[in-house]
């Protein structure tokens, strides 16, 4: 057993000043403008005239210690030993000397085998969750489904050919840790939790009852044991109780499906941020490469690329052309399940006589 000198030592966040590329430290708060030199390569120009080059590449997010060391060796050779990651799990090599740019790009593409891209109006790396690799709740995988989908979208990552940037996220349960994106993929459950009554005693039952957003769980006694029961008609299959208590199994390897949502946007540029909306449901959870997901995502991307005006994000394009035409252009069926029945539902109806005919 290890000797612990007893935490917590309350050290807080690492000192970022020690992690800054020298040109970042020198020009901190004094940057003037930036340009995209080619997909995956940016230059930031300081008021001082200093130029810092950034080479952005797609990372697999999950790495062995050896791969991390390989990344470090490249950054030591060409980047003065400094790099960063982005909020979409891309890696950014920081280059102070222009002559290092080409050899660095060669090393990233050939030695690491990581593609350059994810800048400007491209499909960036997919945000994803932990999945079967290491989560306790997933109905699907994440790292693998993202790898398969990015293989299919590799040209969209490496080129800047869309009206605006495309953020995709992929989550393996309805908690949706990867959150909203222009396109979001989530797992959908199709029945109420199946209760293991003999193992409910490991959970705090009042918490299990209280966590249900639909008030569908109530205390019960079965064979003399304290447990809960679920009112089927009230349950909306969200799985909140499963997170609280593993004996409330919400997943099903046979019936779980995937659904794809569109139009999530966090940026405030042009229009206010928006939530993602249901586009297509009932897609099979089909490892190892989830081909049906790729087909649906590519259908959406193709329609957006053809129809979007410059700078329009995917959701802004749909809002302009109308949802009716989005379903026409993608060929996805519009069904009664697309009509919201949540507390926000009335605000999602077309409360006007403005109708495209």
């Amino acid at each position, binding site marked *: *057993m*290890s*000797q*612990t000198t007893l*935490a*917590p*030592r*309350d*050290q807080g*966040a*690492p*000192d970022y000043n020690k*992690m*800054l*590329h020298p040109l*970042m430290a020198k020009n901190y*708060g004094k*940057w*003037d*403008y930036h340009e995209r030199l080619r997909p995956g390569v940016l230059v*930031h120009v300081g008021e001082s005239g200093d130029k810092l080059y950034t080479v952005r590449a*797609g990372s*697999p*997010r999950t*790495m*062995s*210690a*050896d791969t991390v*060391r390989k*990344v*470090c060796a490249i950054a030591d050779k060409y980047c003065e*030993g*400094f*790099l960063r*990651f982005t*909020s979409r*799990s891309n890696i950014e090599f920081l280059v102070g000397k222009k002559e290092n740019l080409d050899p660095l790009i060669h090393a990233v593409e050939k030695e690491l085998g990581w*593609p350059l891209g994810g800048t400007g109006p491209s499909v960036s790396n997919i945000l994803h969750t932990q999945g079967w*690799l*290491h989560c*306790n709740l997933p109905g699907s995988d994440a790292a*693998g489904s993202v*790898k398969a989908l990015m293989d299919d979208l590799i040209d969209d990552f490496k080129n800047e050919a869309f009206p605006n940037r495309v953020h995709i996220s992929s989550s393996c349960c309805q*908690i949706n*840790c990867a959150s*909203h994106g222009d396109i979001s993929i989530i797992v959908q459950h199709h029945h109420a939790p199946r209760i293991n009554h003999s193992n409910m005693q490991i959970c705090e039952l009042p918490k299990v009852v*209280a966590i249900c957003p639909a008030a569908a769980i109530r205390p019960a006694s079965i064979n003399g044991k304290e447990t809960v029961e679920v009112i089927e008609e009230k349950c909306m299959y*969200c799985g909140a109780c499963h*997170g609280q208590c593993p004996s409330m199994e919400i997943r099903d*390897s046979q019936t779980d499906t995937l659904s794809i949502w569109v139009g*999530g946007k*966090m*940026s405030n*540029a*042009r*229009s*206010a941020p928006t*939530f993602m909306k249901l586009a297509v449901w009932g897609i099979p959870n089909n490892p190892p490469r989830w081909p049906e997901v790729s087909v649906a995502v590519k259908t959406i991307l193709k329609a957006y690329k053809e129809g979007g005006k410059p700078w329009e994000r995917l959701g802004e394009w749909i809002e302009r052309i109308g949802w009716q035409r989005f379903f026409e252009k993608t060929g996805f069926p519009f069904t009664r399940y697309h009509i919201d029945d*949540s507390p*926000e539902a009335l605000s999602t109806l077309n409360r006007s006589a403005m109708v495209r005919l």
Partner: protein
Amino acid sequence: MSAKEMALNTPMLNELESGEWPSFVTDLKAYSKKRPVITQLLNQLEESYQNRWNYWQGKIINAPGYGGGIIARVSDKADKYPGLANFHTVRVIEPPGWVYSTDALRNLADISEKNGAGILQFHGMTGDVLLLGFDDAGSLQCAEDLMNAGWDIGGSGAALRTLQCCVGQARCEMACYDTMKVTKHLTDTFIHYLHRPEFVYKFKFKLSGCSNDCSNSIVRSDMPIIGTWRGAMQVNQAKVAEFIDEKGMDYLVNNVLTRCPTRCLSVRGKELVVDHSDCVRCMHCINVMHKALKPGKDRGATILIGGHRTLKIGDTMGSVLVPFIKLETDEDLNNLTDFIEKVWEFWNDNGMDHERVGEFIYRIGMMTFLKGLDIEPDARMICRPRTTSYIKFEELGPSKFDGERQQNPPVWNRESEARETM
């Protein structure tokens, strides 16, 4: 069977080795030669792929003095894969802005490899570095080694989560405040809340230097802090003219002027005319013409409240709580931390178990939330005033004789009481 004797058996995962995107399967397979436990991990993952089923359960393990930072995972298949019997994750607080020196990265790789499976993830969805694959003793030793090297862990359970911010002023001309400095300040000031779950439920900060919101704060954090400015933005008319010469007037009209959400831009010759009083700091024109346009000089941030993803009441978007706050001096930062503590106190005193602050506001109403925090209402907090006419006007209700308001006075008493106090 010992880990060393076990052979890789991953036909489905092998299909994730083709294609141009970097494959974690290829990486981990190669690494399994050095760390045999990874063979077990991949074989179990293969079974998940075959059976579309998950084999991890949670449990609780903490470093001494901590209530968070280690996410414990135990395998349902520990009989078959003994190396996965305890295979935990350690959550490491990342450097703000995700900037690294190679020394720091190598240090993480070494600590991860020395004490566990040597798998790292950059980064978790809450911004932290994830180190995977430690047994109980390895988790504690990993935490100890991290501490000794100057790192810290935390951010799981009903606690403050690891903060996350955009690259900010370190490499962006648009950042309206020093996101890295404020992130470090908040992390360090509130580090005990990251270490020990003391809240009714989790609380997340995400910080963005401008309203492009690269840290995805508005729907992914309980308190988004988004950079902005007061007064006019900076316009360099010479560079506006250069932009028009380069891109053409059509481009300016079609992609800048008409895309302004408040129509506050117009053009006179080659001069851009801005009605600054109508600008809502959306950043679009600055994004397109970032050499000619810049945020104004009086900079700070807007604080929003209540973003979170769908569980349990559906999505909540952060909404404006403090339209403008300066974040430059130590005093500014102290004002911010004081304000945050006030919000936490009211939420934790009145929130229900497992209730995010956005859900709390949904339940009690923003009107009550503001009153509880003694914050003056501001028209910038809303899109439009209410449309329902059922309102409890405190000022207009009847008073009691002693001047103290009666709680829920019965209807039949109201008129006479009101008359007596008039």
